[in-house]
């Protein structure tokens, strides 16, 4: 057992125990750790965004390199703060319009290509799939799943007869999907616990090598 001599390791370990103390019951030490985490995260985020975004990409080109075009993003950015002044709060519409317009223009074609076109291509039963029986089997299961799940979300007709059969099959696929997601969630939470225990036992207490 080789207990760490690092002050920062001790601080991290004590804060970890403070957060874990919530498992027993809510307490002031936990509250302190929670508020400290929120404050540090936001402060860190602001500092990083300033030094990696605002300062090099706006302040430097505008004020140090004298590039006047950068006044446009500066003014648009400042308009966001008009939200706090009721008389001029309408000015926020300009940066919002720019952000939404630019964002939609960029995001819609890219996401349509990635999440719809390529996904439909991936669902199609192509000749290459018929080359191996196991690939074919999985492709058919996937194909049936997509069709039936989409039928479940088809609300324009009452689910009766063949439509009911398809939508009920879709429910089975959905349940399997939820089960897989829940299983992965359990795994993720356990991983986080194990990670913290590894830190306490290895980095702090030196119990494990």
């Amino acid at each position, binding site marked *: 057992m080789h207990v760490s001599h690092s002050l920062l390791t001790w601080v991290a370990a004590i804060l970890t125990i403070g957060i874990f103390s919530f*498992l*027993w019951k809510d307490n002031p030490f936990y509250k302190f750790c929670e508020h400290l985490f929120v404050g540090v*995260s936001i402060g*860190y*985020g602001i500092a*990083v*965004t300033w030094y*990696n*975004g605002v300062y*090099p*990409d706006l302040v430097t080109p505008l004020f140090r390199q004298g590039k006047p075009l950068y006044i446009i993003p500066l003014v648009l950015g400042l308009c966001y703060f008009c939200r706090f002044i009721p008389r001029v709060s309408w000015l926020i519409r300009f940066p919002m319009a720019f952000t939404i317009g630019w*964002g939609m223009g*960029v*995001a819609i074609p*890219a*996401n349509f*290509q*990635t*999440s719809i076109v*390529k*996904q439909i*291509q*991936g*669902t199609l039963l192509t000749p290459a799939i018929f080359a191996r029986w196991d690939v074919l089997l999985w492709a058919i299961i*996937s194909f049936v799943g997509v069709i039936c799940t989409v039928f479940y979300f088809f609300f324009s007709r009452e689910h009766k007869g063949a439509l009911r059969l398809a939508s009920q099959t879709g429910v089975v696929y959905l349940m399997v*999907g939820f089960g*897989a*997601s829940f299983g*992965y*969630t*359990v*795994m*993720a939470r*356990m*991983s*986080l*616990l*194990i*990670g*913290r*225990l*590894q830190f306490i*036992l290895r980095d702090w207490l030196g*119990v*494990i*090598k």
Partner: protein
Amino acid sequence: MKFFQYLLKIDRRIIYIVMGLLVTLPLVKPLGLGVTSGPRAARLFQAVDSIPAGKTLLISVDFDPASMPELYPMLTAVMRHAFAKNLKVLLCGLWPTGMGLAIKAATDIPPEYGKKYGEDVVYLGYKPGVDAVILGMGENIKNVYPYDYSGRSLDSLPMMRDVQRLRDIPMIVALSAGTPGYSDWLAYAQSRYGMKVGTGLTAVSAADAYPFLQSGQLTGLLAGMKGAAEYEVLVQKSNYSKAYMPAVAAMDSQSLAHVVIMILVIIGNIAYFVTRKRRS
């Protein structure tokens, strides 16, 4: 009947204590259950392995310390693999809170292989504006990142002479804890610049990524700490590293925890159905 009623009212803290002990014990005294690598991790490993020596691998550190147990072992394992294959590693990030982790990896891992910062590894830092950053990197990386994370000009770093834009990089491994992350690299870097994208994800978000793997958009997928352990095993089996493998070391605890949860779920359901008739 009374036993089942007792089970349904058991204090949750007893479950926490049992779970804590069962997770801790295998860390102190490993059970040696072993880890085998699956096809998803193998695909990513083979994709990185097939990159010619001297080329650059881009790794996007899109996670924060909250996801460190799952994703940091992936980062170190992929970097070790890349350095063992004499690849250059370019790190960047879409999460501001991931900077410290990327700096730690860029500082700790290269010396294991005699690699130097600026020649074999560069960390670009964090830059806000996800889609604009990726699209900008596709045109010219130096326009988006004129300096690295510490303020050094990219022109002064020898490694960056051969890497001008995304098309100069054969592959990206996006290690993502959510959004922004691999989905943005797929939407912008792959759809527009045809980049090969592999990913490592937290287990929570892994189920959402399978459709992209099935459609061939993702080259490989590491899901959670198990995915990290699989990659660590592949790296060690290939004699690329002999370093401590935190994800592999955690797998005994993970397996034991899963067994306990399965037993609890089964017992909980049995107790519920046995007592339901009495309650009604």
